[in-house]
């Protein structure tokens, strides 16, 4: 744990004058599974989206592998190719089949041949248990299957960091498990992950660090054992009291 993989420093962001992120300082080290939790509107998703610059911070600096990113000469796409992202609403490409969803970025960005890209895509689709759906259309899949394709699509780019934005919030309860277990396997293999989630069971079991956000600030950062048993900050205590009845 020497150099952080991703480092956010003094990040500020507001939407139409309303501050959403206030002076965020945040380091992610290789192999960590950081779970961002907190009430709706606390800035969790905005913080996550700032990490691959889907949102541009108003102030502050982002370092990826030690390299400052927020300069006009830095190509935003270079960082994004190392960071995979999984969305709440899946965002699969509906005009492409499952396999093509997982190959298009490999071909366009990684410049892999179709053959090579398909080989890698098959490998990751097998990993998420969808080897029998290669030529299915995304619209024919269940929510859980869609999200697993989305995970395979991101993994096929061989990212060093994976961002998950409430990956199970849009799923039927019975499909949450299959997605979480894929994520758990990924964490076991040592993937560095940042997960915005309301799944406290997952955060507790898989997370290596829990961050509670409130009103655009990180209120408390702690290892799950401490965070869930004896939260330090009154805001964390109140939050946990509400959700862990």
């Amino acid at each position, binding site marked *: 744990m020497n150099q952080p993989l991703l480092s956010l420093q003094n990040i500020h962001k507001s939407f139409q004058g309303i501050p959403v992120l206030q002076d965020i300082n945040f380091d992610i080290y290789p192999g960590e599974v950081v779970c961002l939790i907190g009430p709706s509107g606390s800035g969790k998703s905005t913080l996550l989206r700032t990490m691959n610059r*889907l949102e541009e911070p108003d102030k502050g600096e982002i370092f990826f592998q030690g390299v400052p990113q927020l300069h006009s*000469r830095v190509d935003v796409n270079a960082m*994004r190719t190392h*960071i995979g*992202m999984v969305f709440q609403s899946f*965002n699969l490409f509906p005009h492409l089949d499952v396999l093509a969803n997982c190959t298009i*970025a490999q071909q366009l*960005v990684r410049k892999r041949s179709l053959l090579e890209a398909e080989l890698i895509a098959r490998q990751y689709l097998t990993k998420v248990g969808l080897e029998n759906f290669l030529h299915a259309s995304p619209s024919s899949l269940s929510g859980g299957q869609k999200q697993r394709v989305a995970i395979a699509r991101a993994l096929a780019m061989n990212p060093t960091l994976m961002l998950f934005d409430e990956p199970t919030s849009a799923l039927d309860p019975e499909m949450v498990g299959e997605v979480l277990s894929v994520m758990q396997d990924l964490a076991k293999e040592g993937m560095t992950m940042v997960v915005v989630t309301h799944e406290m069971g997952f955060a507790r079991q898989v997370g290596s660090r829990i961050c509670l956000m409130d009103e655009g600030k990180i209120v408390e950062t702690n290892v799950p054992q401490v965070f869930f048993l004896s939260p330090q900050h009154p805001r964390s205590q109140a939050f946990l009291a509400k959700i862990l009845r």
Partner: protein
Amino acid sequence: MPAGFWEGVWYLLEHYWPLFLRGLSTTLLLAALGTLLGFVLGMGLATLQLIPKSSHETWLQKASRPLAKGFSRLYIQIFRGTPMMVQAIIIYYGAMRLWGSWPALLAGIVVVSLNTAAYIAEIIRAGINAIDKGQHEAARSLGLTYGQTMRRIILPQAIKNVIPSIGNEFIVNVKDTSVLNVIAVTELFYNSTSISMTFYRQFEVFFITSVLYFIITLLATAFLNWVDRRLGVRSAVTLPTSATLPFPTRTEDQG
């Protein structure tokens, strides 16, 4: 020429079918080519409005972005805000004044294409706006550039969704090319007028004319609905009203 209505119609069909048919084929040529070229130009006009801000751009790029967008908006406003009949006269006689005489049919194709481009640009723009912004974010998060995202992710979906509207433009053009008779393009309406001048039997002549127009639009509608079913696009095509309204209706803008 016999006095009765049906006898008159029969007489006209018997003696003037080649003229009706030539008019009809010119109308179809104008509508098809005009819609096709209008689509190409419309894509260009829509693109001008979508040039993205890039993080490091020269002052020339910075200045040209609003210029390109402004040109596109102005073009669309002008061509949708004036009747195609007036556009035809301005373009045909204007070019003649500047560079000398040119074929009316060519002028007709130019006019229909330029006019259709304005409508199709708006259709495409609405089609792009209708695509969920999560698609754009997913593509960018995978490292695709803005251009790659547009070409490979957004446009294929947007174009598929607007095919019914483009088809409507073709049907509109079949009907609205009749205004090109003012610059003596020998399309169906112009030829019908010529025939009716011979006998002063407008009713019989234009009865045939309207049936011909109707058959074409009916066939085109049926074809488009078939295409829609194949593509799985929901909205069905009905005979559209004239697109040469001065300003767009609300439903059109929503695409």
